[in-house]
Protein backbone atom coordinates (compact mmCIF):
# COMPACT_ATOMS: atom_id res chain seq x y z
CA UNK A 1 0.00 0.00 0.00
CA UNK A 2 2.83 2.38 0.87
CA UNK A 3 4.52 1.53 -2.40
CA UNK A 4 1.42 2.41 -4.31
CA UNK A 5 1.04 5.74 -2.54
CA UNK A 6 4.65 6.55 -3.37
CA UNK A 7 4.09 5.74 -7.00
CA UNK A 8 1.05 7.91 -7.16
CA UNK A 9 2.95 10.81 -5.65
CA UNK A 10 5.88 10.24 -8.05
CA UNK A 11 3.58 10.12 -11.01
CA UNK A 12 1.84 13.25 -9.80
CA UNK A 13 5.14 15.09 -9.67
CA UNK A 14 5.94 13.86 -13.14
CA UNK A 15 2.65 15.17 -14.44
CA UNK A 16 3.25 18.48 -12.76
CA UNK A 17 6.83 18.76 -13.99
CA UNK A 18 6.07 17.75 -17.51
CA UNK A 19 4.36 21.08 -18.03
CA UNK A 20 7.07 23.17 -16.46
CA UNK A 21 9.47 22.98 -19.39
CA UNK A 22 12.23 25.53 -19.46
CA UNK A 23 13.29 27.37 -22.58
CA UNK A 24 12.88 30.65 -24.38
CA UNK A 25 9.46 32.18 -23.78
CA UNK A 26 9.77 35.35 -25.90
CA UNK A 27 7.73 34.98 -29.10
CA UNK A 28 9.96 37.59 -30.78
CA UNK A 29 13.08 35.40 -30.34
CA UNK A 30 14.46 33.12 -33.05
CA UNK A 31 14.43 30.08 -30.73
CA UNK A 32 11.04 30.76 -29.14
CA UNK A 33 9.46 27.59 -27.82
CA UNK A 34 5.71 27.45 -27.38
CA UNK A 35 6.19 24.50 -25.05
CA UNK A 36 8.43 26.37 -22.65
CA UNK A 37 6.73 27.78 -19.60
CA UNK A 38 9.72 29.19 -17.74
CA UNK A 39 12.30 31.41 -19.36
CA UNK A 40 15.83 30.20 -18.80
CA UNK A 41 17.66 33.10 -20.41
CA UNK A 42 18.58 31.28 -23.62
CA UNK A 43 16.61 33.47 -26.03
CA UNK A 44 18.46 34.37 -29.21
CA UNK A 45 17.54 37.35 -31.32
CA UNK A 46 18.05 38.32 -34.93
CA UNK A 47 20.64 41.02 -35.26
CA UNK A 48 18.59 44.15 -35.31
CA UNK A 49 19.22 46.13 -38.44
CA UNK A 50 18.26 49.72 -38.06
CA UNK A 51 16.21 51.02 -40.91
CA UNK A 52 14.77 54.27 -42.18
CA UNK A 53 12.52 55.66 -44.86
CA UNK A 54 13.21 57.05 -48.29
CA UNK A 55 10.65 58.77 -50.48
CA UNK A 56 10.68 58.45 -54.23
CA UNK A 57 9.13 61.69 -55.51
CA UNK A 58 7.67 61.57 -58.99
CA UNK A 59 7.23 65.03 -60.45
CA UNK A 60 5.08 65.10 -63.57
CA UNK A 61 5.66 67.84 -66.09
CA UNK A 62 4.91 68.60 -69.73
CA UNK A 63 7.99 68.91 -71.96
CA UNK A 64 9.61 71.58 -69.87
CA UNK A 65 10.25 71.06 -66.20
CA UNK A 66 8.71 74.41 -65.44
CA UNK A 67 5.27 73.28 -66.65
CA UNK A 68 3.52 70.93 -64.24
CA UNK A 69 1.49 68.15 -65.77
CA UNK A 70 -1.91 67.23 -64.42
CA UNK A 71 -5.08 65.56 -65.60
CA UNK A 72 -7.92 67.42 -67.32
CA UNK A 73 -5.65 70.24 -68.52
CA UNK A 74 -5.03 70.90 -72.16
CA UNK A 75 -1.44 70.80 -73.39
CA UNK A 76 0.00 71.38 -76.82
CA UNK A 77 2.62 68.96 -78.02
CA UNK A 78 5.61 70.94 -79.28
CA UNK A 79 6.55 68.42 -82.00
CA UNK A 80 3.15 67.31 -83.29
CA UNK A 81 1.11 70.41 -82.56
CA UNK A 82 -1.64 68.20 -81.09
CA UNK A 83 -3.80 69.56 -78.29
CA UNK A 84 -4.03 66.87 -75.66
CA UNK A 85 -6.14 66.58 -72.51
CA UNK A 86 -5.38 63.54 -70.37
CA UNK A 87 -8.18 62.08 -68.26
CA UNK A 88 -6.22 59.04 -67.04
CA UNK A 89 -2.53 58.56 -66.49
CA UNK A 90 -1.37 55.49 -64.58
CA UNK A 91 1.77 53.40 -64.68
CA UNK A 92 3.68 50.78 -62.72
CA UNK A 93 7.08 51.27 -61.09
CA UNK A 94 8.62 48.15 -59.58
CA UNK A 95 11.69 46.30 -58.34
CA UNK A 96 13.37 49.26 -56.65
CA UNK A 97 16.96 48.79 -55.51
CA UNK A 98 19.31 51.21 -53.81
CA UNK A 99 23.08 51.03 -54.24
CA UNK A 100 25.13 51.16 -51.09
CA UNK A 101 28.47 52.94 -50.73
CA UNK A 102 30.27 49.60 -50.83
CA UNK A 103 28.76 48.78 -54.21
CA UNK A 104 26.24 46.22 -52.95
CA UNK A 105 22.51 46.67 -53.49
CA UNK A 106 19.54 46.78 -51.12
CA UNK A 107 16.54 45.22 -52.84
CA UNK A 108 13.11 46.28 -51.68
CA UNK A 109 10.95 43.21 -51.07
CA UNK A 110 7.55 43.04 -52.82
CA UNK A 111 8.41 46.25 -54.67
CA UNK A 112 5.39 47.21 -56.77
CA UNK A 113 3.79 50.62 -57.07
CA UNK A 114 0.93 51.84 -59.20
CA UNK A 115 1.29 55.55 -59.82
CA UNK A 116 -2.13 57.05 -60.45
CA UNK A 117 -2.38 60.73 -61.27
CA UNK A 118 -6.04 60.60 -60.33
CA UNK A 119 -5.04 60.19 -56.72
CA UNK A 120 -2.10 62.52 -56.19
CA UNK A 121 -0.59 65.12 -58.44
CA UNK A 122 3.02 64.42 -57.57
CA UNK A 123 3.14 60.74 -56.70
CA UNK A 124 5.18 59.81 -53.67
CA UNK A 125 6.40 56.25 -53.28
CA UNK A 126 7.46 55.58 -49.71
CA UNK A 127 10.20 53.00 -49.28
CA UNK A 128 10.33 51.80 -45.70
CA UNK A 129 12.70 49.32 -44.11
CA UNK A 130 15.73 50.77 -45.89
CA UNK A 131 18.84 49.76 -43.91
CA UNK A 132 20.68 52.67 -42.33
CA UNK A 133 23.65 53.71 -44.43
CA UNK A 134 24.83 55.80 -47.36
CA UNK A 135 23.47 55.20 -50.82
CA UNK A 136 24.94 56.31 -54.13
CA UNK A 137 22.43 55.17 -56.74
CA UNK A 138 19.07 53.68 -57.65
CA UNK A 139 17.76 51.00 -59.97
CA UNK A 140 14.08 50.57 -60.76
CA UNK A 141 11.90 48.90 -63.30
CA UNK A 142 9.29 50.68 -65.39
CA UNK A 143 6.50 48.13 -65.79
CA UNK A 144 5.90 44.77 -64.15
CA UNK A 145 8.50 42.01 -64.51
CA UNK A 146 7.52 38.95 -66.57
CA UNK A 147 7.46 36.67 -63.51
CA UNK A 148 4.47 38.48 -62.01
CA UNK A 149 2.72 38.35 -65.35
CA UNK A 150 2.82 34.56 -65.46
CA UNK A 151 2.43 33.53 -61.80
CA UNK A 152 -1.30 33.82 -61.26
CA UNK A 153 -3.23 36.03 -58.85
CA UNK A 154 -1.28 38.80 -57.13
CA UNK A 155 -2.04 41.24 -54.31
CA UNK A 156 -1.39 44.85 -53.33
CA UNK A 157 -0.50 47.16 -56.20
CA UNK A 158 -0.77 44.20 -58.56
CA UNK A 159 -4.40 43.42 -57.71
CA UNK A 160 -6.62 43.29 -60.79
CA UNK A 161 -9.10 45.65 -59.11
CA UNK A 162 -7.12 48.63 -60.40
CA UNK A 163 -8.17 47.72 -63.93
CA UNK A 164 -4.54 47.57 -65.07
CA UNK A 165 -4.86 44.01 -66.32
CA UNK A 166 -5.80 42.33 -69.57
CA UNK A 167 -8.21 39.50 -68.88
CA UNK A 168 -8.31 37.95 -72.38
CA UNK A 169 -4.56 38.03 -72.99
CA UNK A 170 -3.04 37.64 -69.54
CA UNK A 171 -0.77 40.45 -68.50
CA UNK A 172 -0.51 43.86 -66.88
CA UNK A 173 -1.38 47.10 -68.59
CA UNK A 174 1.80 48.84 -67.53
CA UNK A 175 0.95 52.32 -68.78
CA UNK A 176 -2.61 53.57 -69.18
CA UNK A 177 -2.99 56.98 -70.82
CA UNK A 178 -6.41 58.15 -71.94
CA UNK A 179 -7.86 61.47 -72.92
CA UNK A 180 -9.20 63.65 -75.68
CA UNK A 181 -7.71 65.54 -78.56
CA UNK A 182 -9.32 67.37 -81.47
CA UNK A 183 -6.60 65.81 -83.64
CA UNK A 184 -7.59 62.26 -82.64
CA UNK A 185 -9.73 60.34 -85.12
CA UNK A 186 -13.05 58.80 -84.21
CA UNK A 187 -14.73 60.59 -81.35
CA UNK A 188 -11.73 62.77 -80.57
CA UNK A 189 -10.42 60.36 -77.95
CA UNK A 190 -7.09 58.62 -77.49
CA UNK A 191 -6.59 55.42 -75.54
CA UNK A 192 -3.18 53.93 -74.89
CA UNK A 193 -3.03 50.70 -72.90
CA UNK A 194 0.60 49.68 -73.07
CA UNK A 195 1.98 46.36 -71.89
CA UNK A 196 3.79 43.22 -72.99
CA UNK A 197 6.39 41.18 -71.17
CA UNK A 198 7.75 38.60 -73.57
CA UNK A 199 9.78 38.35 -76.77
CA UNK A 200 9.56 41.24 -79.20
CA UNK A 201 6.56 42.62 -77.31
CA UNK A 202 8.47 43.16 -74.09
CA UNK A 203 8.28 46.75 -72.83
CA UNK A 204 9.59 46.18 -69.29
CA UNK A 205 12.55 48.52 -68.86
CA UNK A 206 15.15 48.66 -66.08
CA UNK A 207 16.56 52.08 -65.34
CA UNK A 208 19.53 52.99 -63.19
CA UNK A 209 20.97 56.28 -62.04
CA UNK A 210 23.93 57.38 -59.94
CA UNK A 211 23.16 60.13 -57.47
CA UNK A 212 26.38 62.00 -58.25
CA UNK A 213 28.65 63.64 -55.76
CA UNK A 214 26.20 63.67 -52.89
CA UNK A 215 25.03 60.41 -51.35
CA UNK A 216 21.72 59.63 -49.69
CA UNK A 217 22.16 59.23 -45.94
CA UNK A 218 19.58 56.97 -44.41
CA UNK A 219 19.15 57.02 -40.65
CA UNK A 220 16.26 55.91 -38.46
CA UNK A 221 14.91 59.45 -38.54
CA UNK A 222 16.03 60.73 -41.92
CA UNK A 223 13.53 61.98 -44.51
CA UNK A 224 15.63 61.63 -47.66
CA UNK A 225 14.06 61.97 -51.07
CA UNK A 226 14.91 60.81 -54.54
CA UNK A 227 13.36 62.98 -57.23
CA UNK A 228 12.40 61.58 -60.62
CA UNK A 229 10.91 63.56 -63.45
CA UNK A 230 8.11 62.09 -65.55
CA UNK A 231 7.13 63.64 -68.90
CA UNK A 232 4.08 62.08 -70.63
CA UNK A 233 4.77 64.04 -73.83
CA UNK A 234 7.56 61.53 -74.59
CA UNK A 235 4.92 58.89 -75.45
CA UNK A 236 4.68 60.54 -78.86
CA UNK A 237 8.38 60.89 -79.69
CA UNK A 238 8.38 58.27 -82.45
CA UNK A 239 4.71 57.61 -83.20
CA UNK A 240 3.99 61.30 -83.62
CA UNK A 241 0.49 62.71 -83.74
CA UNK A 242 -2.55 61.05 -82.16
CA UNK A 243 -3.92 61.05 -85.69
CA UNK A 244 -1.33 58.36 -86.55
CA UNK A 245 -1.97 56.10 -83.59
CA UNK A 246 -4.99 56.92 -81.46
CA UNK A 247 -5.54 53.60 -79.79
CA UNK A 248 -3.36 50.81 -78.43
CA UNK A 249 -5.02 48.07 -76.45
CA UNK A 250 -2.69 45.08 -76.67
CA UNK A 251 0.98 44.17 -76.67
CA UNK A 252 2.71 44.72 -79.99
CA UNK A 253 4.87 47.14 -81.97
CA UNK A 254 2.87 50.30 -81.14
CA UNK A 255 2.97 49.49 -77.42
CA UNK A 256 6.71 48.83 -77.58
CA UNK A 257 7.41 52.10 -79.41
CA UNK A 258 5.29 54.33 -77.19
CA UNK A 259 6.26 52.71 -73.89
CA UNK A 260 9.97 52.57 -74.53
CA UNK A 261 10.03 56.19 -75.74
CA UNK A 262 8.25 57.21 -72.56
CA UNK A 263 10.37 55.01 -70.28
CA UNK A 264 13.69 55.92 -71.89
CA UNK A 265 13.37 59.64 -72.44
CA UNK A 266 10.31 60.59 -70.39
CA UNK A 267 11.37 59.18 -67.03
CA UNK A 268 14.63 60.36 -65.52
CA UNK A 269 16.50 60.83 -62.28
CA UNK A 270 16.74 64.46 -61.23
CA UNK A 271 18.34 64.86 -57.80
CA UNK A 272 18.29 63.74 -54.20
CA UNK A 273 18.09 65.61 -51.01
CA UNK A 274 18.72 64.44 -47.51
Amino acid at each position, binding site marked *: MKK*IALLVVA*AGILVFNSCKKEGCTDPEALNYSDKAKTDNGTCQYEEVQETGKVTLMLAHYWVNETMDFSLNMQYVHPETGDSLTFTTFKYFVSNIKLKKEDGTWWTQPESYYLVNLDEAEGAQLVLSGVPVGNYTGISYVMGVDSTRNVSGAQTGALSTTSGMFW*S*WNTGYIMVKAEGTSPQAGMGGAFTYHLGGFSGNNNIVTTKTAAFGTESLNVTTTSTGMIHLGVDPSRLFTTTGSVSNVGMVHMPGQNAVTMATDFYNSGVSFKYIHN
Partner: protein
Amino acid sequence: MRFIIILCLLQVLTACKKTLITPVLPLLSFYQPVDFPEPVYPLAQNPVTREKFELGRLLFYSPVLSLDNTISCATCHAQTHLFADHNVAVSSGVGGLTGTRNAPPVFNMAWQPHFMWDGGVNHLEMFSIAPITNPVEMNETMLNVINKLNASDYWKKQFKAAFGTDQITDQQLFRALTQYMLMIVSDGSHYDKVKRGQASFTADQQAGYNLFLQKCASCHKEPLFTDYSFRNNGLDEISADDGRYLITQLESDKGRFKVPTLRNVLLTYPYMHDGRFFTIDQVLEHYSSGVKSHTNLDPSLQNGIPLTADEKKYLKRFLETLNDYELMSKMELSEP
Protein backbone atom coordinates in the same frame (compact mmCIF):
# COMPACT_ATOMS: atom_id res chain seq x y z
CA MET B 1 -1.03 -1.91 -9.06
CA ARG B 2 -0.08 -2.26 -12.74
CA PHE B 3 -3.28 -0.49 -13.62
CA ILE B 4 -2.30 2.51 -11.51
CA ILE B 5 1.13 2.73 -13.09
CA ILE B 6 -0.37 2.64 -16.56
CA LEU B 7 -2.88 5.27 -15.56
CA CYS B 8 -0.08 7.51 -14.21
CA LEU B 9 1.97 7.04 -17.36
CA LEU B 10 -1.03 7.91 -19.49
CA GLN B 11 -1.53 11.06 -17.50
CA VAL B 12 2.12 12.01 -17.98
CA LEU B 13 1.87 11.42 -21.69
CA THR B 14 -1.23 13.47 -22.18
CA ALA B 15 -0.45 16.25 -19.75
CA CYS B 16 0.95 18.70 -22.30
CA LYS B 17 -1.16 17.87 -25.30
CA LYS B 18 -3.51 20.53 -26.50
CA THR B 19 -7.10 19.56 -27.07
CA LEU B 20 -7.64 18.37 -30.61
CA ILE B 21 -10.41 20.17 -32.47
CA THR B 22 -12.40 17.86 -34.66
CA PRO B 23 -12.74 19.39 -38.14
CA VAL B 24 -16.32 20.15 -39.06
CA LEU B 25 -15.78 19.21 -42.70
CA PRO B 26 -13.89 16.18 -43.93
CA LEU B 27 -10.38 16.98 -45.15
CA LEU B 28 -9.75 17.44 -48.82
CA SER B 29 -6.68 17.34 -50.99
CA PHE B 30 -5.91 17.48 -54.69
CA TYR B 31 -6.76 14.28 -56.51
CA GLN B 32 -4.11 13.00 -58.89
CA PRO B 33 -5.23 10.14 -61.15
CA VAL B 34 -2.43 7.58 -61.31
CA ASP B 35 -2.22 7.56 -65.09
CA PHE B 36 -2.26 11.35 -65.54
CA PRO B 37 0.95 13.40 -65.73
CA GLU B 38 1.97 15.84 -62.99
CA PRO B 39 -0.36 18.86 -62.95
CA VAL B 40 0.81 22.06 -64.64
CA TYR B 41 -0.89 24.22 -61.99
CA PRO B 42 1.54 25.05 -59.16
CA LEU B 43 -0.41 23.42 -56.31
CA ALA B 44 2.14 24.55 -53.72
CA GLN B 45 1.10 28.20 -54.07
CA ASN B 46 -2.54 27.38 -53.36
CA PRO B 47 -2.80 24.06 -51.49
CA VAL B 48 -6.29 22.59 -51.69
CA THR B 49 -8.26 22.75 -48.45
CA ARG B 50 -11.87 21.83 -47.76
CA GLU B 51 -12.75 25.38 -46.74
CA LYS B 52 -11.25 27.04 -49.82
CA PHE B 53 -12.75 24.43 -52.13
CA GLU B 54 -16.21 24.91 -50.60
CA LEU B 55 -15.85 28.68 -50.97
CA GLY B 56 -14.87 28.21 -54.60
CA ARG B 57 -17.89 25.98 -55.09
CA LEU B 58 -20.21 28.63 -53.60
CA LEU B 59 -18.69 31.28 -55.86
CA PHE B 60 -18.91 29.07 -58.95
CA TYR B 61 -22.66 28.75 -58.45
CA SER B 62 -23.26 32.34 -57.35
CA PRO B 63 -24.53 35.09 -59.70
CA VAL B 64 -22.82 37.69 -57.48
CA LEU B 65 -19.94 37.69 -59.96
CA SER B 66 -22.13 39.17 -62.72
CA LEU B 67 -23.21 42.78 -63.18
CA ASP B 68 -26.92 42.24 -62.54
CA ASN B 69 -26.82 39.06 -60.47
CA THR B 70 -28.18 36.93 -63.29
CA ILE B 71 -25.24 34.81 -64.43
CA SER B 72 -23.00 32.44 -62.53
CA CYS B 73 -20.08 30.36 -63.80
CA ALA B 74 -22.43 27.38 -63.72
CA THR B 75 -24.87 29.12 -66.07
CA CYS B 76 -22.58 28.26 -68.97
CA HIS B 77 -20.54 25.51 -67.31
CA ALA B 78 -23.17 23.10 -66.04
CA GLN B 79 -22.30 19.84 -64.34
CA THR B 80 -25.12 18.11 -66.22
CA HIS B 81 -23.23 19.04 -69.39
CA LEU B 82 -19.81 18.16 -68.05
CA PHE B 83 -19.23 21.80 -67.18
CA ALA B 84 -19.86 23.04 -70.73
CA ASP B 85 -22.93 25.04 -71.78
CA HIS B 86 -26.30 23.46 -72.49
CA ASN B 87 -25.55 22.32 -76.04
CA VAL B 88 -25.69 25.78 -77.57
CA ALA B 89 -23.20 27.10 -80.13
CA VAL B 90 -22.44 30.26 -78.20
CA SER B 91 -23.46 31.31 -74.70
CA SER B 92 -25.71 34.12 -73.53
CA GLY B 93 -24.38 36.62 -71.03
CA VAL B 94 -25.78 39.58 -69.12
CA GLY B 95 -28.65 41.20 -71.04
CA GLY B 96 -28.87 38.24 -73.41
CA LEU B 97 -25.76 39.26 -75.33
CA THR B 98 -23.96 36.43 -77.07
CA GLY B 99 -20.31 35.76 -77.65
CA THR B 100 -18.59 34.32 -80.69
CA ARG B 101 -17.04 31.15 -79.29
CA ASN B 102 -18.33 27.91 -77.83
CA ALA B 103 -17.88 27.59 -74.06
CA PRO B 104 -15.34 24.80 -73.46
CA PRO B 105 -15.98 22.29 -70.69
CA VAL B 106 -14.28 23.02 -67.38
CA PHE B 107 -12.57 19.81 -66.26
CA ASN B 108 -8.98 18.58 -65.96
CA MET B 109 -7.95 22.23 -65.69
CA ALA B 110 -4.97 21.37 -63.48
CA TRP B 111 -3.20 19.91 -66.52
CA GLN B 112 -3.83 22.78 -68.93
CA PRO B 113 -0.82 24.96 -69.76
CA HIS B 114 -3.07 27.75 -71.12
CA PHE B 115 -6.78 28.55 -71.37
CA MET B 116 -9.38 29.73 -73.89
CA TRP B 117 -9.60 28.65 -77.54
CA ASP B 118 -6.71 30.98 -78.37
CA GLY B 119 -4.61 30.23 -75.27
CA GLY B 120 -4.68 33.90 -74.26
CA VAL B 121 -4.89 33.14 -70.54
CA ASN B 122 -1.65 31.82 -69.12
CA HIS B 123 -2.62 30.71 -65.62
CA LEU B 124 -5.60 28.93 -64.05
CA GLU B 125 -5.86 31.63 -61.37
CA MET B 126 -6.26 34.28 -64.06
CA PHE B 127 -8.89 32.33 -65.96
CA SER B 128 -12.00 33.54 -64.09
CA ILE B 129 -11.34 37.23 -64.69
CA ALA B 130 -12.04 36.76 -68.41
CA PRO B 131 -15.72 35.71 -68.13
CA ILE B 132 -16.29 38.03 -65.15
CA THR B 133 -15.19 41.14 -67.05
CA ASN B 134 -16.24 40.22 -70.61
CA PRO B 135 -19.11 42.59 -71.62
CA VAL B 136 -20.98 39.73 -73.32
CA GLU B 137 -20.56 37.37 -70.38
CA MET B 138 -20.76 38.63 -66.77
CA ASN B 139 -19.93 42.23 -67.68
CA GLU B 140 -18.54 43.14 -64.25
CA THR B 141 -15.38 44.89 -63.09
CA MET B 142 -13.09 43.24 -60.58
CA LEU B 143 -13.28 46.32 -58.36
CA ASN B 144 -17.06 46.12 -58.23
CA VAL B 145 -17.06 42.37 -57.57
CA ILE B 146 -14.66 42.78 -54.65
CA ASN B 147 -16.64 45.74 -53.30
CA LYS B 148 -19.90 43.74 -53.50
CA LEU B 149 -18.32 40.82 -51.66
CA ASN B 150 -16.81 43.06 -48.97
CA ALA B 151 -20.18 44.71 -48.42
CA SER B 152 -21.82 41.37 -47.71
CA ASP B 153 -21.72 39.80 -44.24
CA TYR B 154 -22.49 36.44 -45.80
CA TRP B 155 -19.47 36.51 -48.13
CA LYS B 156 -17.20 38.01 -45.48
CA LYS B 157 -18.03 35.05 -43.27
CA GLN B 158 -17.38 32.57 -46.06
CA PHE B 159 -14.03 34.13 -47.00
CA LYS B 160 -12.98 34.36 -43.38
CA ALA B 161 -13.67 30.67 -42.91
CA ALA B 162 -11.44 29.89 -45.90
CA PHE B 163 -8.66 32.46 -45.64
CA GLY B 164 -8.87 33.72 -42.06
CA THR B 165 -8.89 37.40 -43.02
CA ASP B 166 -11.51 40.12 -42.77
CA GLN B 167 -10.75 41.84 -46.05
CA ILE B 168 -11.70 39.99 -49.23
CA THR B 169 -9.18 40.31 -52.07
CA ASP B 170 -9.29 39.36 -55.73
CA GLN B 171 -6.42 36.94 -55.13
CA GLN B 172 -8.57 35.06 -52.61
CA LEU B 173 -11.49 35.02 -55.04
CA PHE B 174 -9.34 33.67 -57.88
CA ARG B 175 -7.66 31.07 -55.70
CA ALA B 176 -10.93 29.79 -54.24
CA LEU B 177 -12.45 29.43 -57.73
CA THR B 178 -9.23 27.74 -58.81
CA GLN B 179 -9.60 25.17 -56.04
CA TYR B 180 -13.08 24.28 -57.15
CA MET B 181 -11.91 23.92 -60.76
CA LEU B 182 -8.88 21.87 -59.70
CA MET B 183 -11.21 19.29 -58.20
CA ILE B 184 -13.24 18.83 -61.39
CA VAL B 185 -11.32 15.84 -62.67
CA SER B 186 -12.62 13.63 -65.43
CA ASP B 187 -11.07 10.20 -65.11
CA GLY B 188 -14.14 8.06 -64.50
CA SER B 189 -15.00 7.02 -68.04
CA HIS B 190 -15.25 3.47 -69.33
CA TYR B 191 -11.98 4.12 -71.17
CA ASP B 192 -10.29 4.90 -67.83
CA LYS B 193 -11.63 1.70 -66.32
CA VAL B 194 -10.29 -0.28 -69.26
CA LYS B 195 -6.89 1.40 -68.84
CA ARG B 196 -6.89 0.41 -65.17
CA GLY B 197 -7.80 -3.17 -65.92
CA GLN B 198 -11.25 -2.87 -64.33
CA ALA B 199 -13.22 -3.28 -67.56
CA SER B 200 -12.68 -4.20 -71.16
CA PHE B 201 -13.60 -2.83 -74.57
CA THR B 202 -16.12 -4.57 -76.79
CA ALA B 203 -14.79 -5.63 -80.19
CA ASP B 204 -16.28 -2.50 -81.81
CA GLN B 205 -14.84 -0.20 -79.15
CA GLN B 206 -11.44 -1.84 -79.55
CA ALA B 207 -11.61 -1.39 -83.32
CA GLY B 208 -12.48 2.26 -82.74
CA TYR B 209 -9.63 2.68 -80.28
CA ASN B 210 -7.19 1.23 -82.80
CA LEU B 211 -8.44 3.68 -85.42
CA PHE B 212 -8.21 6.53 -82.92
CA LEU B 213 -4.58 5.66 -82.18
CA GLN B 214 -3.83 5.54 -85.88
CA LYS B 215 -5.70 8.65 -87.04
CA CYS B 216 -6.45 11.01 -84.14
CA ALA B 217 -4.06 10.42 -81.25
CA SER B 218 -1.21 12.59 -82.49
CA CYS B 219 -3.22 15.75 -81.68
CA HIS B 220 -5.75 14.30 -79.21
CA LYS B 221 -3.01 12.78 -77.11
CA GLU B 222 -3.80 10.38 -74.27
CA PRO B 223 -4.52 10.45 -71.40
CA LEU B 224 -5.92 14.01 -71.56
CA PHE B 225 -6.90 13.62 -75.22
CA THR B 226 -5.25 16.85 -76.33
CA ASP B 227 -1.67 17.98 -76.77
CA TYR B 228 -2.76 21.59 -76.04
CA SER B 229 -1.23 22.79 -79.31
CA PHE B 230 -2.83 25.37 -81.62
CA ARG B 231 -3.75 24.08 -85.04
CA ASN B 232 -5.67 25.10 -88.10
CA ASN B 233 -7.99 22.21 -88.95
CA GLY B 234 -9.23 23.55 -92.27
CA LEU B 235 -12.63 24.85 -91.24
CA ASP B 236 -12.53 27.90 -93.50
CA GLU B 237 -10.43 29.26 -96.33
CA ILE B 238 -10.78 32.67 -94.71
CA SER B 239 -11.34 32.57 -90.97
CA ALA B 240 -13.93 34.88 -89.48
CA ASP B 241 -12.14 34.44 -86.15
CA ASP B 242 -8.35 34.76 -86.30
CA GLY B 243 -7.90 32.56 -83.22
CA ARG B 244 -4.37 32.33 -81.88
CA TYR B 245 -3.32 35.25 -84.08
CA LEU B 246 -5.32 37.60 -81.81
CA ILE B 247 -2.85 36.78 -79.05
CA THR B 248 0.46 36.45 -80.89
CA GLN B 249 -0.12 38.69 -83.95
CA LEU B 250 1.79 36.12 -86.00
CA GLU B 251 0.45 35.49 -89.52
CA SER B 252 1.30 31.81 -89.07
CA ASP B 253 -1.20 31.67 -86.18
CA LYS B 254 -4.20 32.85 -88.19
CA GLY B 255 -7.12 30.46 -87.90
CA ARG B 256 -5.40 28.29 -85.32
CA PHE B 257 -7.29 27.14 -82.23
CA LYS B 258 -6.40 24.96 -79.30
CA VAL B 259 -6.89 21.23 -79.84
CA PRO B 260 -9.87 20.42 -77.58
CA THR B 261 -9.99 17.33 -75.39
CA LEU B 262 -12.06 14.37 -76.61
CA ARG B 263 -13.05 13.39 -73.09
CA ASN B 264 -16.86 13.64 -72.84
CA VAL B 265 -16.92 14.73 -76.46
CA LEU B 266 -20.30 13.15 -77.21
CA LEU B 267 -21.87 14.93 -74.24
CA THR B 268 -20.45 18.37 -74.98
CA TYR B 269 -21.71 19.12 -78.49
CA PRO B 270 -21.77 21.36 -80.49
CA TYR B 271 -18.22 21.32 -81.82
CA MET B 272 -15.41 23.61 -83.00
CA HIS B 273 -14.51 27.04 -81.61
CA ASP B 274 -17.77 28.51 -82.91
CA GLY B 275 -20.02 25.53 -82.27
CA ARG B 276 -20.77 25.14 -85.99
CA PHE B 277 -21.18 21.33 -85.97
CA PHE B 278 -23.98 19.95 -83.85
CA THR B 279 -23.29 16.26 -84.36
CA ILE B 280 -20.19 14.15 -84.16
CA ASP B 281 -21.08 12.82 -87.61
CA GLN B 282 -20.59 16.30 -89.02
CA VAL B 283 -17.19 16.47 -87.33
CA LEU B 284 -16.07 13.12 -88.69
CA GLU B 285 -17.36 14.11 -92.14
CA HIS B 286 -15.37 17.34 -91.92
CA TYR B 287 -12.12 15.47 -91.29
CA SER B 288 -12.99 12.81 -93.82
CA SER B 289 -13.96 15.03 -96.75
CA GLY B 290 -14.51 18.64 -95.70
CA VAL B 291 -11.05 20.01 -94.83
CA LYS B 292 -10.49 23.30 -96.66
CA SER B 293 -7.15 24.63 -97.78
CA HIS B 294 -5.49 27.39 -95.75
CA THR B 295 -1.90 28.66 -95.60
CA ASN B 296 -1.75 27.57 -91.99
CA LEU B 297 -3.57 24.24 -92.42
CA ASP B 298 -2.04 21.62 -90.17
CA PRO B 299 0.39 19.38 -92.11
CA SER B 300 -1.35 16.27 -90.77
CA LEU B 301 -4.59 17.38 -92.45
CA GLN B 302 -3.28 18.19 -95.93
CA ASN B 303 -5.23 15.25 -97.30
CA GLY B 304 -7.86 15.19 -94.60
CA ILE B 305 -8.45 11.97 -92.67
CA PRO B 306 -10.40 9.77 -95.07
CA LEU B 307 -12.76 7.48 -93.16
CA THR B 308 -15.07 4.71 -94.39
CA ALA B 309 -18.58 4.37 -93.01
CA ASP B 310 -17.44 1.45 -90.85
CA GLU B 311 -14.46 3.37 -89.53
CA LYS B 312 -16.71 6.25 -88.51
CA LYS B 313 -19.00 3.79 -86.73
CA TYR B 314 -16.14 2.20 -84.80
CA LEU B 315 -14.66 5.61 -83.90
CA LYS B 316 -18.01 6.63 -82.44
CA ARG B 317 -18.17 3.41 -80.42
CA PHE B 318 -14.79 4.31 -78.98
CA LEU B 319 -15.69 7.98 -78.32
CA GLU B 320 -18.69 6.75 -76.30
CA THR B 321 -16.24 5.17 -73.88
CA LEU B 322 -14.94 8.67 -73.03
CA ASN B 323 -18.25 9.70 -71.44
CA ASP B 324 -17.70 10.29 -67.74
CA TYR B 325 -21.07 9.79 -66.02
CA GLU B 326 -19.40 9.69 -62.60
CA LEU B 327 -18.28 13.29 -62.98
CA MET B 328 -21.70 14.30 -64.23
CA SER B 329 -23.29 13.14 -60.99
CA LYS B 330 -20.54 13.76 -58.46
CA MET B 331 -22.32 15.23 -55.42
CA GLU B 332 -19.26 17.03 -54.13
CA LEU B 333 -19.25 19.28 -57.20
CA SER B 334 -22.97 19.94 -57.44
CA GLU B 335 -24.78 23.18 -56.64
CA PRO B 336 -24.40 23.75 -52.88
